[in-house]
Structures are given as structure tokens and as C-alpha cells.
């Protein structure tokens, strides 16, 4: 990336930061998220167009507000002749006046807006897209590319969710202490879901940006709720994954499993930051799901220093995580770690109860792990069957090619 691009990206960052703060401020006052976005959309588009080349103004919020108010006054004037009483536009204009009057101490209500977007009364799959749109000003088109939903459908569902926030009376605010943990998890889950989209769709143009945005949102939540260890745990988890981004594919684009990754391609600065966050979060021992998952990643990266993975600790952390989540995916990952400590036979035994779980039968990593473990025990026929099922369930080309190599290696052995 050259300097001009970097400056443009920085300008875009400031524009998104300022935009999200103003949308959150307006939406929290009026409960009208769509109205707040409307009021600022033209000013935001102008900022995205002008700031990268003209430079960022001294007071970005004030710049956006001035442009937004000018556009608002124009449009009210225009509309009043045609269509008397565009209520929300007038309301937003008043709110913008009030915001401008508060000068550069506009309170940051982005956390409140995130809690509204991730409220349990909002459909789970729409929480991440809503946060990406309202806090970062991403368009339905940009979001739909990552979520593999047609842009028009994504647009409609976003509009419906915003109407629901207003009509159902979904609150804008940080929940009371007794509910904070559960509600914060919904916010973190939404951000992590956005990150996972950007992580999985590795080959698609434009999608990795979603991963960057998710990390940025993770930093935002940590800065706004510095006392919450799970927020730090989730940010650390994303950074550990991000640190390995360049090692996940070889020069030909082929999939490289974690154990075989070239550790010189891992990003040390991101790992260091993740370690620091995790240490702060788990001062009293890791407690939440994200801290435990980050701790597992931390144990994996220990290979950087010691040359060998810290599998004993990984298994212990998975034990803890499994008792917390009861998730079959966690049980599967635990079994894979067991193989490194006690051998493939023990791992297959640990995996046995999962065979009765219907969710696992259509889960590609289950069959791939089974194939690897069976191959290590020398049971080539069953291993080949498991690899074939895994190949049949794979949607990622690079992973499919990797599994096909594993399958043919069985025949050659």
C-alpha cells in the first residue's frame, strides 16, 4: 500500500468514526435509526469523496454536521412545497441543531446503538449487518458481499430491522449490571460473526475488509467498556487469527493447516498485542468463552518460541471451554488436541459420542478430523470414506484440494 492510499484509508477511517458517532447520537435521541442515517448520508458520502484528497478537516464532526444541516434545510424547503410535514426530517434537523450546540463534546452513544442492534429481539443473523451499517456506514451492497445474501434482500432486511428497533421500542443503552454479561455477549458474537465472514471467504475480493472492520469494532468496544474481560478476550482472539492470515495459504494458494504453517509468516506485533490483551483480561484466570478461545490460540502460538505446540494446556483449556459451552464443535476440537497428547486412538474414542450428533454428520471439519485420525491409526478404508464425505461437504476450493491430496496419499501409502 503506498502513502496516498494509506492517507486515503486514514481519512475514510475518520469519516466512518465521525459518522458512526453522529448516527448513534441522533438515533439514541430519536429512536429513528433510518432517519438518523438519512440525515447524515449525503454529508458522509461527501466526506468519503473529499477527505481522502483534500485532507481531514480539523473538526470532522462539525464538518459533517454543517454539511448535513445545510442539506437538511434544503431538502425540507424542497419537500414542504410538495409534501407537507416530512416529520422526521424536521425532527432530525432540530436534533442536529442541538448536537451542533453541544460543540465538540458530542457524547459517544455508539455502544448504546450496538446494544440496540444486538438486542435479543433482533433476528440473530441481522445483528452483525446492522452494526456494520449503523456504526461504520457500510452499504447494503458491501455487507451483502460478505454475508452471501443478494444486496436487495440485505437492504430490505436492514430496513425491516431498523423499523423494528423503533416500533418495538428496543432500548438504546448499556444494560443494567445483571444483564450486561449476556447482552454484551450478543454484541461480541455479532462482531465476531462479521470477523468470521471476512476470515472464511479468503479468496473473494473486498471481503477481507470486513475482517478489518470487525477488529476495529472490537477495539471500539474495548475502549468503551475497558473493564469487561470478554471484550478483550474477543479482540485478542481476532488478533491471533489475523496474525496468521498470511500463513494460511502457500504461494500457490493451497490450504496450509495450522500445524504446518510457516511461523515466520505470522505477524509478531499482532500476536504481542493479543497476548497483552489476554493477560489483562484473564488476570484472575480465563473465565469466559472468548478468553478461553484466545488462550487456546495463545498456546498454539507458543510454537513460535518453543518449536512445539503446548498441547497439554490446549486440552485443559478445551475441557474448561466444553464444560462452559457444551458445544459439539468444541468437543471435536478437544478430540483433535487429545490426539497430540495421547495419540489418534484416544482421540477417536473422545470423538465417539459425536457420531450420534446429527449436526456433526453434515459438518465438514468432523469428517476431515476423523479422516486424519483414522489414517494415523492405519485404518485406510475408513479414513478414505471419511475424507470422501469431508470433500463432499467442502465449499472452499483450497480446502477441497488439500483433502483430495490427503485422500490420494492414503492410496500411495
Amino acid at each position, binding site marked *: 500500500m503506498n502513502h496516498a492510499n494509506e492517507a486515503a484509508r486514514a481519512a475514510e477511517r475518520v469519516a466512518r468514526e465521525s459518522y458512526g458517532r453522529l448516527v448513534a447520537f441522533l438515533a439514541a435521541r430519536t*429512536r429513528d435509526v433510518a432517519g438518523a442515517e438519512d440525515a447524515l448520508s449525503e454529508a458522509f458520502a461527501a466526506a468519503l469523496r473529499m477527505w481522502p484528497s483534500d485532507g481531514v478537516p480539523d473538526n470532522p464532526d462539525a464538518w459533517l454536521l454543517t454539511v448535513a444541516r445545510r442539506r437538511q434545510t434544503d431538502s425540507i424547503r424542497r419537500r414542504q412545497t410538495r409534501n407537507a410535514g416530512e416529520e422526521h426530517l424536521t425532527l432530525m434537523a432540530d436534533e442536529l441543531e442541538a448536537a451542533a450546540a453541544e460543540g465538540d463534546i458530542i457524547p459517544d452513544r455508539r455502544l448504546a446503538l450496538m446494544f440496540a442492534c444486538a*438486542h435479543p*429481539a433482533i433476528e440473530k443473523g441481522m445483528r452483525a449487518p446492522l452494526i456494520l451499517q449503523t456504526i461504520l456506514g457500510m452499504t447494503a451492497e458491501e455487507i451483502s458481499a460478505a454475508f452471501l445474501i443478494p444486496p436487495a434482500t440485505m437492504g430490505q432486511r436492514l430496513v425491516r430491522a431498523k423499523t423494528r428497533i423503533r*416500533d*418495538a*421500542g*428496543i*432500548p438504546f443503552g448499556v*444494560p443494567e449490571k445483571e444483564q450486561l454479561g449476556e447482552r454484551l455477549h450478543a454484541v461480541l458474537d455479532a462482531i465476531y460473526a462479521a470477523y468470521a465472514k471476512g476470515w472464511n471467504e479468503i479468496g473473494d475480493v473486498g471481503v477481507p475488509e470486513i475482517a478489518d472492520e470487525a477488529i476495529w469494532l472490537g477495539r471500539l468496544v474495548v475502549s468503551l467498556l475497558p473493564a469487561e474481560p470478554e471484550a478483550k478476550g474477543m479482540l485478542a482472539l481476532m488478533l491471533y487469527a489475523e496474525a496468521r492470515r498470511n500463513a494460511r495459504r502457500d504461494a500457490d494458494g493451497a490450504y496450509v493447516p495450522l500445524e504446518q504453517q510457516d511461523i515466520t509468516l505470522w505477524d509478531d506485533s499482532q500476536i504481542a498485542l493479543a497476548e497483552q490483551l489476554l493477560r489483562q483480561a484473564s488476570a484472575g484466570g480465563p473465565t469466559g468463552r472468548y478468553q478461553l478461545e484466545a488462550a487456546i490460540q495463545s498456546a498454539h502460538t507458543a510454537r513460535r518460541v518453543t518449536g512445539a505446540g503446548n498441547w497439554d494446556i490446549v486440552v485443559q483449556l478445551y475441557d474448561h471451554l466444553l464444560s462452559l459451552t457444551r458445544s459439539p464443535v468444541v468437543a471435536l476440537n478437544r478430540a483433535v488436541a487429545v490426539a497430540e497428547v495421547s495419540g489418534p486412538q484416544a482421540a477417536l474414542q473422545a470423538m465417539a459420542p459425536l457420531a450420534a450428533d446429527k449436526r456433526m454428520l453434515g459438518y465438514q471439519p468432523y469428517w476431515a478430523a476423523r479422516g486424519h485420525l483414522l489414517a494415523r491409526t492405519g485404518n485406510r478404508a475408513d479414513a478414505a470414506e471419511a475424507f470422501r464425505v469431508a470433500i463432499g461437504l467442502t465449499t472452499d476450493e483450497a480446502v477441497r484440494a488439500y483433502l483430495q491430496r490427503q485422500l490420494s496419499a492414503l492410496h500411495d501409502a
Partner: protein
Amino acid sequence: MRYMMLIHHDEAALAAAPQKELWADYAAFNEALGKAGLSGGERLQPSSAATTVRQEDGKTDVLDGPYADTKEQFAGYFFVDAPDLDGAIDWAKRCPSSKYGSIEIRPVVAAQGNRN
């Protein structure tokens, strides 16, 4: 905001519940509603007493039974005034009926010019 709380009971689960405790819980809940200045609701006869009427092309259909033959049946309602949905959810959690079925929370359409 004003919310209507629609109670849907699993009638079998309700019948199997310890009746004395159930109605004591309900009495306490109604008292709490009253103390909060909220109107008590009304309890309906079971769905076996329901009749459903529909008019189509000038013809009237009268059916014995409820609108939909589902496990949970509409059983009563109450109203609450709450600052937001979380306030209404708290009242739904307090209502003993939420243990024997579900409570649907519906915002009431405000009179014109009186939003919020």
C-alpha cells in the same frame, strides 16, 4: 410506550401445575401490577369454550373451537406502560404464565400526533 401482553397457555401444562401456588403467584403478580399503576388484565375461559367466525362472499362460517388448533392457546392479556421493550420484557418474566406457555409483547399503536 404502551404494550399489550398476550398470554398464550399450554393448557395441559397449566392443568398439571400445582393450582394453589399458581393462583397465589398470580395474586402477587396482579398486586404488583396494581402497585405500579398498571391495569390488571383479563383471564379467558379455556379454548374449549372458543367459537371462530369468518365471513366470505356474504356467507358466514361459524366454527366451534379456537382460531388455530395449536399447543399453546390465547388465554388472556394485560397492558403495561414501559419506557422501552426491556421494561415490557421484565413484566413478561414476572407474569406466572410465562412458565406455562408464552407471552407475546405487542406495542400498541399510539393515537395520531402522540408517538412514543
